[in-house]
Every structure is written in C-alpha cells, then in structure tokens.
C-alpha cells in the first residue's frame, strides 16, 4: 500500500493483508459521446493476493465499468477521467496501449458473462486456450513444441474439470456450463495474478452456477490468485467472497468483510437491499422493497446518491459530499469496514440478513403458518383456472434427433391461487406457459384454460383466441422488449382495453379514465400515459406490462420469469405488486421461475419440472421443506444462499 489517500478515508485496503495486488483509488469514468455524463464517481477498492473480493450493485451502479477499467477494456464511448489504478504497485493508467496489452493475461484477465458469445465459434476450444499461453514458456513453432502445447492444453482442461477431447470441440458443440469452464481455462492460460469475473454465472442455470462458483473458488486457492467477482446477486457474493464492496449509482456506499456486511450492514442501502432479497428458507411478509429506481448517469444530485430512495434520509444527506468512514465502534468488524452513510451513528441498528424475523416464534413454525393459506388437500379440478393433462410437445423433426420438451405433463392451477412452476433452463417450463396461452402448439394431451379447450396439433382459431384472451393473460421476462417502442404507454393500454371490450368485457366509463385507473393499479403516476417505453426504467416497463395484462380482468395471469431480469429492489416491488393485485382481484397466477427464493416468497403451490416431466408437486412448504424428488433437492442445494443462524 503505497498510494496516498485522503485523510477522510484511511485507505481502501486498510485492515486487509499487506502487499496489495490491485489498488484502485478515486477512479472516475464518464461517457464521452454526447453529454459527458459521469458514470463512476471516484470509486476506490483494493484486492490482496489470494483474496476474493465481491463487487455488488444493481444495474446502473457502474460496477462492471469500474472493474473493467482495470483491464483497459472499456467499451467505445466511455473513458477514465480520473483516479489511479495500480496493479502490483505499477500504475497502469499512464501506460500506452501496447504496454497495457502486455499486462493482460499475465497480470490480470477478464472472464465475462455469456459463455455462448465469449469464445470464437469457428475455433476449437483447445486452440483458444493455446492462444493465451505464454509464448516464452510454450513456443509455437516446431513439432515438439506443438506437442508440448497440446499437452499443456489438456492439462489446463483437466484443471477446470474437463476431459481432453474437449480440446477438439467447437463451442457450439458444448453446453453452457462446459463452455464457461473452457472459457475459464482460456482466461487463466497466461497464469494471471488477478482474475476479474464479470457476472460469470448469470447466464447459467442454478446447478451450473454453483459448479462454476466452486470452480473459481478452488482455482483461486490452488493458484493463490486474486479474484474479483462482479455480480448483481447478493447471495452469490456473500457465499463466495472474503470482502464485499457495495456500489450504487457510481459510488461505493459500503465495504467490509462479507460475513459482517451481511449480518450487520452499515448503510441503509445495503440493509434495504438485503431485506428485499427473497429467502429460500422463509417467506418475508411483507417483502420490503426500495421505492423508485437507480438514478441514471446525468441525473444524480449532490450528496448521497441513495438519498432520494432512503427511508432514513435527512437534510445533510443531500448536501454533504460522499466520504467513506469507519462505522461506529459497536458494529461487527468495525475496524475493517467503511460506510458512506453520514448518519450511520444516528441510526439504530439496521436489519441484516437475519432480518426482522428474530422476534418470531422460530422460522420453521412461522413458515408453516404463512404458507398455510393454501389448502393442503389437492386442488379441486372443477373451479381450476388451468388444467393441463398428459401434454407432450416435441421440437425438431425428421432426421434430427428432435427434442422432447414436454412429455405427459399434467398440472392444475386452482382459481385464485399462485402456482409456481420451477425447473432449470431447458426443463420445458416456458414451453408449458406458452402452450397455456396459445402461443405454442402441443402434440398430445388436453389443455383447458378456463372456458377454452385447446386442441392438440393446432393454434387456436380467432374465436377461441378471443375467449382465451378474456380469461388468460401473460407477462414476459424481458421488460425492454415487452412494449412496442413506438407507442406511448397510454396507447398500449388503450389498445388493451379496446381488445378487452371487444372480447366481451363490460367496461363502464370513459376510456381515458380506465387507462388512468390501470396506471394507478400498478402504482404509476397518470402522466406516464404520455411516455414512450424508452423513457421508462425496467421496473416501470414491467409495471406497464402488468397493467396491459390486467386490462382484460383475467382469471389467470401467467408470469414467465417476469421478475428474473429485474434488480433485487425492483423485483421486490413487482412481487409485492403481484401479491397485492392477486388479493384484490382474486385471479390465479401461474408463475414460471428458476428461483426457489421467489417461489417461497410468492407461491401457494409449486410444481417442479425436470426434462419435460413434472417430478414433484405440492404446497410450497411441503415441497421446499421436505423435498421428495432428487431434482428438487438438487435445485435447493444449488441455491447460493446460506441459512443465517438466528
């Protein structure tokens, strides 16, 4: 630690092992195109050799850019405008592009999010691993050298747990989990001192997620390598990292040892974020959420960027410059922690992950009570919102092997209840949702969506589609593609209302009033009717999508991973909104998700889908607390959340 630091902040690495591997101090990053918005406002962090540091934050926090700046691989239109970055004591921002290029691979390497685009599709995995090997140790020319390189590639594959024949495979021949392993081997080919992993598990399903996290942890120990894990997922960060930096809107709001931060956050933002994270172990009632959304670059005021959303805000928060200081002496690990909250001394203890439940009669008992709203007996078929019986669906025909997406699936969604359908990617859950709403055909079996009987082998006709529309609606995963980019929110909702009226819904009163009523229902102000989707945040778009679906007053709402693309705090808002709307309008919900914590939070019943079959079904408490099927147990084991002892 040789960098001079401001007096207000006794060094980001204070209290960490000496001889820092990476030191970032006061880093500023701004957009160069158009208006020069500041994206990262003076971020400092440090990584010691062999240490795993988590950088967590919601979208728009600048976490990815701040860490990528270390590698010199910022995207076009974004540039470093201040601060220092030193790798192993060497200042790197002053270096020329060639010298910085020479550092990549050996000093620092970057592993990215999407295994399907990270590797070149026309080169074998082995070739791409070999391309990164240090040439002085593994020369390229000569027959003997080539054989040695090949042996080295096989050794590297073995290191990440892949067999030797993967060397000759092309990326499109491998699964996501295998690809992420191969990419890890490629990233480590030149034996870097520091590996930066940017959301390395976000594109993987939970089982692969756990495996890749375990692999990264093992490699860090074996190689005594520094590891920076950038993630939006608090559970991932807390389960794998030694220390955590919490970023919000371009600033570090808090940092410290992972366990201490999780148990006793020293910033209201961290506390609120932890509280709004659903838990797989118990339902939070209600699930706290943070109002509003992350301010975009260019619209951040002075003072604490979180002030506008903070429940503990005071006048000083909006004016005092942001400084990291040690928390009050009573906080766990206070000497190794820093918080940016100016009022932390004045606040009484903020709730940690153990949360507000501590006064309860004990988690298990509370859990039983809270999910007891669902009848324990099997659902009655007569008043069911959706009945699926013996449905099969096969994709791909002819000489291709084809893929049996669903085989003999039966499922009943009782009226007025929330039924979750869980499974890993490829289990067929989205296919089933699309069949239920007539977007996908099926080969065999019967589907009765309320009053509409869907037939196997064909799309529903116009009359059936209208009756189906009056009964069943859907909210999709991607809020950014859910709304027509050219239409205002009002136009989208007016069209939905007009369609509902044509489909037989008696709508009384003025249509504009009805639009405002819909907006109000989903918690959006009236003037949003004139906005286009581009002017809305992800959470706001998802609210509009919910409003559009509710225009038809459906009896069944299908949510296809409807909260999966949202930030934790926004996800909590939408989950709360859905629960509240379900209570007031008493429709049934088929909730498709991969996230068991979300299931625990929202669902009355749950069905587990594996390779196109329903393998387990029951009330949420039954299935999550006493899983009977292997697949359910596997899904539960892969959840990165650690149960906090209370």
């Amino acid at each position, binding site marked *: 630690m040789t960098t001079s630091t401001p007096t207000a902040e006794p060094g980001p690495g204070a209290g960490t092992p000496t001889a820092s591997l990476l030191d970032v101090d006061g880093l500023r990053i701004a957009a160069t195109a158009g208006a020069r918005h500041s994206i990262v406002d003076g971020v400092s962090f440090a990584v010691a050799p062999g240490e795993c540091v988590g950088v967590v934050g919601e979208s728009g926090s600048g976490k990815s*850019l701040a860490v990528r700046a270390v590698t010199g691989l910022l995207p076009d239109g974004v540039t470093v405008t201040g601060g220092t970055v030193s790798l192993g004591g060497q200042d790197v921002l002053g270096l020329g592009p060639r010298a910085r290029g020479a550092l990549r691979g050996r000093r620092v390497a970057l592993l990215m999010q999407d295994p399907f685009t990270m590797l070149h599709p026309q080169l074998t995995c082995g070739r791409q691993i070999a391309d990164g090997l240090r040439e002085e140790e593994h020369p390229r020319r000569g027959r003997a050298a080539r054989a040695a390189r090949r042996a080295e590639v096989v050794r590297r594959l073995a290191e990440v747990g892949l067999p030797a024949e993967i060397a000759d495979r092309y990326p499109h021949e491998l699964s996501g989990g295998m690809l992420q392993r191969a990419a890890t081997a490629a990233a480590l080919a030149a034996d870097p001192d520091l590996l930066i992993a940017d959301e390395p598990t*976000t594109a993987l399903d939970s089982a692969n997620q756990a495996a890749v996290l375990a692999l990264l942890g093992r490699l860090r120990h074996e190689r005594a390598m520094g590891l920076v894990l950038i993630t939006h997922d608090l559970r991932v960060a807390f389960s794998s990292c030694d220390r955590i930096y919490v970023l919000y809107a371009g600033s570090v709001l808090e940092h410290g040892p992972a366990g201490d931060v999780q148990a006793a956050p020293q910033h209201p933002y961290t506390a609120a974020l932890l509280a709004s994270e659903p838990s797989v172990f118990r339902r939070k009632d209600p699930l706290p959420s943070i109002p509003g959304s992350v301010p975009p670059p*260019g619209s951040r005021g002075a003072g604490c960027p979180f002030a506008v959303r903070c429940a503990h805000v005071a006048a000083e928060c909006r004016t005092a410059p942001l400084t990291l200081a040690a928390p009050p002496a009573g906080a766990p690990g206070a000497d190794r922690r820093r918080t940016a909250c100016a009022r932390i001394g004045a606040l009484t203890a903020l709730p940690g992950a153990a949360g507000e439940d501590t006064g309860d009669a004990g988690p298990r008992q509370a859990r039983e009570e809270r999910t007891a709203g669902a009848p324990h007996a099997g659902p009655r078929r007569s008043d069911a919102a959706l009945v699926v019986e013996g449905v099969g669906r096969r994709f791909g025909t002819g000489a291709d092997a084809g893929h049996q997406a669903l085989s003999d699936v039966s499922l009943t969604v009782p009226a007025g209840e929330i039924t979750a359908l869980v499974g890993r990617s490829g289990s067929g859950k989205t296919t089933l949702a699309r069949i239920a709403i007539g977007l996908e055909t099926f080969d065999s079996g019967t589907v009765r969506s309320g009053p509409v009987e869907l037939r196997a082998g064909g799309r529903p006709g116009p009359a059936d589609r209208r009756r*189906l529309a009056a009964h069943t609606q859907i909210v999709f995963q991607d809020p950014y593609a859910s709304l027509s*980019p050219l239409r205002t929110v009002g136009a989208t909702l007016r069209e939905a209302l007009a369609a*509902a009226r044509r489909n037989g819904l008696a709508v009384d009163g003025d249509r504009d009033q009805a639009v405002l009523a819909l907006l109000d229902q989903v918690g959006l102000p009236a003037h949003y009717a004139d906005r286009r989707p*581009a002017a809305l945040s*992800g959470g706001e778009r998802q609210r509009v999508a919910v409003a559009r679906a509710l225009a038809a007053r459906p009896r069944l709402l299908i949510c296809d991973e409807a909260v999966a*693309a*949202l930030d934790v705090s926004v996800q909590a808002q939408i989950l709360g909104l859905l629960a509240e709307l379900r209570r007031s309008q008493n429709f049934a919900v088929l909730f498709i998700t991969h996230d068991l914590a979300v299931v625990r939070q929202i669902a009355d019943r749950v069905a587990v889908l594996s390779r196109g079959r329903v393998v387990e079904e029951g009330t949420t408490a039954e299935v999550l607390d006493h899983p009977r099927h292997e697949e359910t147990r596997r899904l539960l084991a892969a959840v990165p959340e650690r149960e906090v002892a209370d």
Partner: protein
Amino acid sequence: MTDHPTAAGPADRTGTTARRPRPRIRPLTAAGAAVAVLLLAAAAFGQSLLPGWDAQDIAAGARMPGGGHLLGTDALGRDIAEMTIAGARSTLTGAALVALGSMLIGNVLGLLAGYLGGWTDMLVRRWADLLLAVPALLVTLVVAGIGGGGYALAVCALMVLTSPSDIRLVRTAVREQRHLPYVEAAETLGLPRRTVMLRHIWPNTLPVAVANTLLNFAGSVVALSSLSFLGLGVPPGAPDWGRMLAENRDLLYTNPSAALAPAVLIVLSAVVLNHLGDRVLEVFSKRGNA
C-alpha cells in the same frame, strides 16, 4: 441469449431511462437532401419550365459552352443545359417508380412471409432466391429488348427484379420482431392477426424499408440510364441522360460537356440517394441499439 430463458440478471443498461439526444443532422446530409429536392423538382417541372429544350439549330451544332448556351450545344444544336434539366424526368421518375414498386412488393411479400411462416414463407423465399440469382440489368435488357415493350416494360421488369432485396429485408425484420414479447403480448390480447401484423410489427420494420428504398432508387437510376444508354427503354425523341450520353460521346473532342453533363448528373443523383439511404440506416441502427 434467446435460447436461455432463465438467463436471469439485469444487464447493465446504463442510461436507458434518459432520453437519447436526437441524432445530429450533418451538413453533408443536409446538402444531399437539398440536391435531391432540386433534382426531383427538375424531374417534375423541368420540361414545363423549359418548353424550348428540344429547339434545334444545326448551324450552331456541337459548340463549346458560351454564346447563350451555358454548356454548349449538341450535334443538332440543342442546348445541353436545358436538355440535361429536361432529361431528369425519364430517369428519375422511372427509378422512383422502380424503388417504390419494389418497396410495395417487398413489404407485402416480406410481411406475409415473415409473419405467417410455413408454406407462404417457403414459397416467397424461393421466389426471392430465384430473382436474386439473376443479374437484374441483363434480364431487363433481354426482356425489354425481345418483348419490345419499351420504357414501361423495362420499369416493370426492373421493379420485380429489385424486389428480392426488399422482400428479404422486410422478412428478416419481421422475423426479428415476430417473437418479441410485445408482439406476442398483442396476440394474447386476442387482437386479429392482421392488426398485429399491420399495427405492431410493420411500423417497426419501416425504417430499414425506407433506407433500402433510397438505396434501390439510386441503383435504379444507374440501371435505367444504362438501359437507355444501350438504346432501350426510353422512346425516341424523349430527353434522357443515358441516351444523351450515348449520342454525345463522339463529341468528347468538340464539346465534352455534352457527354459529361448528363454523366455528372447521373452520378450526382445516385451519390446523393445512396448517401441518404446509408444515413437513414445508420441513424436507425444506432437507435435500435438503444
């Protein structure tokens, strides 16, 4: 990653909530648009404003610029400047018809193929592939020449032969939108498929179609003037850039502007239209990434 529906997690879409700045109009693009307007005005009103464009004066034939003739005269003593302005009509209107007709064919077939899929899609695709496999200029030359239909036949043939690029483009754009959640949401509202196709998908494919129409316009200027250079298409006596060039190329020594003036205007029209098309495409592809 569309094949990973559970790819959870928010991508860092920094700044999506801020209004994007409007794309700046470059001076060059503005100049191009102005030239395009002038050329189209010449095509529309040139012959009415210059009723004497074909006045002959053999005695004053093949003169260099000067003496009341801004660009000199051709072998028959006609004023090159006036003829060039009058000649805008046949090339530009023909090319505009080709581009617009092709856009119409392309939008109808592309929309149907992209949205309906299945057999419709297969047939339309085969048709487009077939037309794309043959050189448009040669086919038009042969069909118009053998068929003896002149200008109208040439324009129609070129229209059909230009349409595959529009068909493919619109079809691809429709297929990109086809399974986007906002389109499927419109379907699940129970809206008629026609409404979904015309009111939801089509408007979002328009920018590429407009850009491609401008590019096709430019290409058709080149193709139509090539045909009239070869003596096909334009009826005898009508002013036309390609024909002027063919007739006046022997005057390169005596009055080069007789051949160069129409050549320059052909190139200028095509450059301006190509540039505008490229710009539209650029602006909208940037906006699409927003």
